[in-house]
């Protein structure tokens, strides 16, 4: 089923709320006038100034295109920020891992040097013991050879 713009105009024709509405409205207006005159006669206390916190939000609410743009910019900024933070975290983790690896390598090299040194000492001691043993064995050999 199709409708024309005239149908829409007809559907949205103005409706009058009636004379009763005018009277009710004037009643509330008169009430407001009475309240206003009463409050004017009373000493007025200084009202704290309203903060316009929601002014920008209200302004945005009436401009959907701007709101979308602001949201898009925020998303983009958060996206880039998040990406950069993750990149930074990754680089930092890599740096720490490299430093650990370097430290382990240094410790290993130190251990190897110590082991080599220990072997050198052991070899020197063994040579010394061997030489002493040979010196002590030499006179016995002479005696044995003479007895024969």
């Amino acid at each position, binding site marked *: *089923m*199709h*409708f024309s*713009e005239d*149908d*829409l*105009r*007809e*559907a*949205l*024709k*103005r*409706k*009058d*709320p009636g*004379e009763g*509405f*005018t009277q*009710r*409205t*004037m009643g*509330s*207006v*008169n009430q*407001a*006038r009475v309240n206003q005159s009463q409050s004017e006669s009373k000493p007025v206390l200084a009202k704290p100034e309203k903060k316009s916190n929601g002014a920008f939000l209200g302004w945005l609410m*009436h*401009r*959907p*295109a701007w709101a979308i743009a602001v949201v898009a910019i925020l998303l983009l900024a958060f996206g880039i920020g998040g990406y950069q933070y993750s990149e930074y975290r990754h680089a930092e983790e890599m740096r720490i891992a490299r430093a650990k690896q370097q430290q382990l390598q240094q410790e290993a090299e130190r251990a190897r040097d110590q082991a080599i040194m220990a072997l050198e000492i052991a070899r020197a001691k063994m040579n010394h013991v061997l030489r002493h043993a040979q010196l002590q064995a030499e006179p016995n050999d002479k005696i044995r050879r003479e007895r024969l």
Partner: protein
Amino acid sequence: MEQTAAFEDDRLNLALNRALTGDAQAFADLVREHQGMVFSIAYHFLQDRSLAEDLAQEVFLELFQSIDRIQSPAHLTYWLRRVTANRCIDQGRKKHRRREMALEEAPEPTTVSSHADPMLLERLQQSLATLPERQRLVVIMRFQEGLGPAEIAEVLEMPVNTVKSTLHRSLADLRKGLTRKIREVRYAFL
């Protein structure tokens, strides 16, 4: 025709000037003159007679409080449309309100022209109620108030191109909604 419009303008100007001096009768004349517009915008937006009446009363109360800011009858009409539209949006946000079906809420016995199909008009109003707030207001301003895109843009504080695209989209949505409703009715009878 032009003479009548000029006379009407003079009459409203006089009423406005008198209302500015605090003449209650002149203010009542202004209310009487514009109540149809304010009430209808609210009624077509909210689809609730009692809520629309309350909203219209609040608008006129606000007018009474800010009457000294009104410069001319044209400015008054613009001001009323704008304040009503803003209040409609505020009211629309109070989604969890209790929806009362008052006796008076039944559709107004409007003077239907000979070619208009009452069922189509009712379905159009129902479909209008399903549109998002901004779209609904744009349609009301265009087809109830007969405003052009530039005037709608001024009243609703929207760019003109947005008004045009919103209007286009709203009509398409209304057509879609209406077709769906007709299909539902058809299936119900099958």
